[in-house]
């Protein structure tokens, strides 16, 4: 069995993902559509929240992906630091914008959903605030990548920033909890644990979560391939100049 690290070779990675990407993309679209359609059209209103509960099918999956995207970038950064494989560094670079968009979606849906419940668009609720902080971390990470010309220096610096940032993101997560009790729903909508909301909402939610995960995967694969090709363009053009 070829070891996992062979996929870290960019050429091989691009070849293997040629086959995988279409498959994952189609699967992502299917899951997304079924999950959202099922949740949107075929589930009853919540006795308390009315139809706004339908926002759950976007808010919860996007919030989950926002956190998992950063964790994936953290793992990719560790792999870059330890094994120096270009693909993992470029995958982290590719995942950052997707994670950022997921965070923005979670924030937007959270704020919009909160409006009827809490009466204001933006309440400084610990979970929403920690997503706001996560957005800042994403911006910083992406900005650092674009600020440095040399690819490998950029990879090194951003991976160290990701490590340090993760520790402080975690610290902020609990500092924010300490700082304000919060209006967010209780465990029924918690982002980490399995939802224990009523079954009828539960199954479509799982499908849309699967849809979001596959969407994230497809986007990261696509963007990583683009980063690898962009890197190859830079290498070839510097070589052109050298002759």
């Amino acid at each position, binding site marked *: 069995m070829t070891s996992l690290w062979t996929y870290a070779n960019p050429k091989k990675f691009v070849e293997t993902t040629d086959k995988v990407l279409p498959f994952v993309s189609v699967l992502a679209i299917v899951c997304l559509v079924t999950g959202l359609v099922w949740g949107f059209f075929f589930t009853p209103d919540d006795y308390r929240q009315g139809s706004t509960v339908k926002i759950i099918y976007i808010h919860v999956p996007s919030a989950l992906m926002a956190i998992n995207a950063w964790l994936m970038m953290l793992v990719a950064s560790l792999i870059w630091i330890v094994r120096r494989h270009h693909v993992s560094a470029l995958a982290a670079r590719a995942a950052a914008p997707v994670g950022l968009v997921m965070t923005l979606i979670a924030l937007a849906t959270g704020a919009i959903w909160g409006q009827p419940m809490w009466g204001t668009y933006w309440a400084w609720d610990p979970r929403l605030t920690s997503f706001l*902080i996560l957005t*800042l*971390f994403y*911006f*910083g990470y992406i*900005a*650092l990548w674009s*600020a*440095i010309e040399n690819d490998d*220096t950029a990879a*090194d*610096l951003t991976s*160290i*920033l990701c*490590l*340090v*940032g993760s520790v*402080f*993101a975690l*610290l*902020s997560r609990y*500092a*924010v909890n*300490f*700082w304000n009790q919060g209006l967010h729903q209780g465990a029924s909508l918690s982002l980490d644990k399995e939802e224990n909301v009523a079954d009828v909402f539960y199954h479509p939610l799982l499908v849309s979560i699967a849809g979001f995960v596959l969407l994230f995967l497809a986007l990261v694969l696509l963007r990583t391939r683009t980063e690898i090709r962009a890197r190859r363009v830079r290498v070839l053009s510097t070589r052109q100049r050298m002759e």
Partner: protein
Amino acid sequence: MIALLLRDLRLAIRAGGGFGLGLAFFLIVVVLVPFAVGPEAGLLSSIAPGILWLGALLACLLSLDRIFALDWEDGSLDLLAVSPLPMEAVVSVKALAHWLTTGVPLVLATPLIAVLLNLPGEGFRSLILSLALGTPALSVIGTFGAALTVGIKRGGLLLSLLVLPLYVPTLIFGAEVARRGLSGQDTSTPLLLLAGITCGAIALLPFASAAVLRVNLR
């Protein structure tokens, strides 16, 4: 190590050293607040701890890119990298020098400046304690940010973008201590957490900063 610290302190005090800059900025920010929110004493005293903490944080932030920029330009950083001093030591001494030239003057000046915001008497003790405990973390985290952006031209804005999110826990706990001190509540929990973050930062961040500097020196 001491030689580097003394040199940096001497440089800061000498002409163009930027010793008083952080302090001046802190004073200006605090003076501007009443213009922005109105002179009403009750309002000012309630927001005073937060404003003073924010002012101290921004003052530290502003003087960060001077930490490595000068040594980077005149080649001292390369020479220090080859000297017997390990990079971790160089980074820690730089953070300490930044704290001594920016953090400490802030803490000492806070009582005077807090009067401008009608901070009631009982609020002083906890505010100064929280600043004294918090500013070292601001310096160490800031040094990490400065090391990250040392090679980037005009990296000042990027430095702020990278460092501000890292400042959030310190700001939250620091301002919380000051606020609780003001209203007479027990400040032990936020104080311990603040001290914890500072000690953690002092102990661990120099390794990250040194690694980043070695990458930038390549």
